[in-house]
């Protein structure tokens, strides 16, 4: 009985420690200057966030998105308090995809290795309109993003 009690206590402590470790850190405060690379519906995608500021509790961000050799404008917002990210991908000022996702928490406030994943809506071309997944990994600097 004594052993069982000790085992249960140890297991409880382990679960508690694991839970704390996964959620102990905060989200990064600023994405300006960061680069992100990964895939959107299985195809290579790069996001560069060049500016962040204004817009209220969820700060406005601007930058570019590159896929298949074509670069588009990226505008949206980032919420430092929750890690939520929204990006409208546009050509000629008209969005055709909207990305909505979350950034992971990490112990260090450097963007290297942060994860950004979620889904994006495709709003043109009737054969492929719908929602699709995306997943990106952050780099500390835009210049470190490999194309």
């Amino acid at each position: 009985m004594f052993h069982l009690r000790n085992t249960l206590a140890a297991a409880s402590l382990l679960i508690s420690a694991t839970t704390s470790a996964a959620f102990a850190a905060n989200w990064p405060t600023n994405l300006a200057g960061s680069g992100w690379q990964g895939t959107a519906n299985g195809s290579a995608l790069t996001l560069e966030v060049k500016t962040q500021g204004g817009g209220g509790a969820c700060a406005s961000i601007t930058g570019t998105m590159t896929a298949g050799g074509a670069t588009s404008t990226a505008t949206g917002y980032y919420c430092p308090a929750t890690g939520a990210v929204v990006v409208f991908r546009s050509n000629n000022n008209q969005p055709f995809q909207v990305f909505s996702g979350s950034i992971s928490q990490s112990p260090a406030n450097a963007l290297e290795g942060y994860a950004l994943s979620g889904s994006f809506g495709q709003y043109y071309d009737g054969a492929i309109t719908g929602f699709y997944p995306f997943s990106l990994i952050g780099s500390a600097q835009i210049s470190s993003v490999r194309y």
Partner: protein
Amino acid sequence: MKKSIMLLSAAGLAGMLASGSAFAQAPASVVSATWDLRANNAGPVTLDIKSQGTVGNCPTISGTFVDSAGTSDVVGFYCPSTGLISFLRTNSKGSSSQAYTGQVITLSTNPTVLEMDGTFLAVSSTANGAYPFEGSNAVVKSPG
């Protein structure tokens, strides 16, 4: 006898749960006379979906969106198999700064009425964020 009654009661309860609100039907078309919506608890917003395509699992939709700021064009898609709807609201400058995503269902209490609820993402110079929207239409046009 008592055991049989208990078993029947359990089966009845399971049946009630299975036929609850989670199983409302999605309509084949969202083209309607008028959708009356409230966005971020503000309204009235009138959404008129004028066309729905036939290509793909989630065909394109287009129409207009009218609120106190004026009339905007909308373009997006609707997935009849799931009831998922999503559209962009295009502002007067030809750009879009709001993306709406929600579910469309047929009211079980009145099959002629459709309900649309969801969230819209707003990119704004002062109030970026995700906000709720909800509404319904009164009369549904024939699909196509």
